[in-house]
């Protein structure tokens, strides 16, 4: 399968893989978000959803495996592309300037790293439940209480909001970008595509952020 190897090592091949894994990860985020928003429907809704997820362990582990695979691939190709890109300009400019590149597009590595750190914390916080003894003591499916406990602590809520900002930025460039990378481009739809990135990215981030924010501000209790 040398052609696969060669394609994956090529600049466009690596980007295509990032786009494809990006789509998978974004899909996961949307699903995750939909579940999380059940918190506004009350404790039973979200807790039974959380319990429901575990009813089919095979499916769950398959999904988790796929997600992990996409995640690792996304990171690996990001590393490959970033290293090659850094090597392409050994000597920097004395005067750095940008004409039209967005902040988000120029800081994908930064926002990506923030997200990576956040994911580790988030898993430790709610999945492995090792960061907070109070949460560790709760029942496995009392997601509602875990969230209340977690987001009433200002530093935790802040950390989540910060992470959501990173997600919003990362996705707003990432989503717009994947259309370009996959060559899904036509003059008639380009204007629309240009909006999809920021709208979906920021939308996802805001909806996610609404949860810690409403808990912290006491709208959900």
């Amino acid at each position, binding site marked *: 399968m040398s052609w696969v190897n060669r394609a994956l090592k090529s*600049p466009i091949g690596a980007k295509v893989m990032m786009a494809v894994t990006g789509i998978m990860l974004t899909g996961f985020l949307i699903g995750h978000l939909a579940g999380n928003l059940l918190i506004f429907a009350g404790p039973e809704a979200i807790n039974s959803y959380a319990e429901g997820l575990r009813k089919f362990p095979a499916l769950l582990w398959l999904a988790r495996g796929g997600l992990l695979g996409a995640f690792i691939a996304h990171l690996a190709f990001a590393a490959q*592309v970033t290293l*090659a*890109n850094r*090597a392409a300009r050994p000597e920097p400019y*004395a005067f750095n300037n940008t004409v039209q590149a967005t902040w988000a597009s120029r800081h994908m590595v930064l926002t990506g790293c923030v997200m990576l750190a956040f994911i580790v914390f988030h898993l430790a916080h709610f999945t492995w439940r090792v960061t907070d003894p109070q949460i560790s003591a709760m029942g496995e499916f009392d997601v509602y209480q875990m969230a209340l406990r977690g987001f009433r602590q200002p530093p935790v809520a802040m950390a989540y909001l910060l992470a959501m900002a990173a997600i919003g930025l990362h996705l707003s460039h990432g989503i717009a970008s994947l259309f370009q990378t996959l*060559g*899904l*481009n036509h003059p008639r739809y380009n204007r629309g595509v240009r909006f999809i990135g920021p709208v979906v990215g920021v939308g996802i981030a805001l909806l996610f952020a609404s949860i810690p924010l409403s808990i912290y501000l006491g709208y959900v209790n």
Partner: protein
Amino acid sequence: MKLKLHVWRQKNKSAKGAMVTYDADNISPNMSFLEMLDVVNEGLSNTGEAPIAFDHDCREGICGSCSLMVNGVAHGPQDATTTCQLHMRSFQDGEELYIEPWRAKGFPVLRDLIVDRSAFDRIIQAGGFISVNTGAAQDANAIPVRKLDADEAFNASACIGCGACVAACKNASAMLFVSAKVGQLSLLPQGQPERQERVLNMMSQMQEEGFGNCTNQYECEAVCPKQISSDYIARLNREFISATLAHPNTRK
């Protein structure tokens, strides 16, 4: 006008370079940027200092020789303009200007502001052509070409190969350059027979030359003096994906 210039000086390919500061006096706003440098060079020569070396030839924005980074922007602040067509009226009296060569692994500096862009030639040599020997052509009107396609092919073929896209790209990627040629030839009926080999060969040459990858920031199209759209990069991606899937082993 008076200006303060910070210019990259480097004796040769292997020497270490540095930014050196010069004063430029008696600059007319009607001068082109290169004429301003001519005046500075005339002054340097008169004092026995080596003039600043920079590439230039046609001075009308079409040969693609001139290649200066002015305050961090390839070809300077004016849209759709090469350095030779940039005029000093775009700047304020007393302004400080940083003038640097294109920076990329694929474009090593030869002296001062001159870089070696032969990597671009090698990318074209890898496949940026239609293989038709002289004399083998049929009548020019034998194959009609849809006007929209011809116009779009023209928009891409307007590329002057100056390398501003590489210089402006955070990743020193040559994707806009490659996409312009791939785009032009894939839009025309004459370019169809070699369509798939072309994109694969040109892309692998681009990679070999040490250019980076596109991260869709579109700085390239913002500085392109011929306003070549990054839509051609999307087209290039599409061409590459379909060529890879359809004929994975067609490569030189």
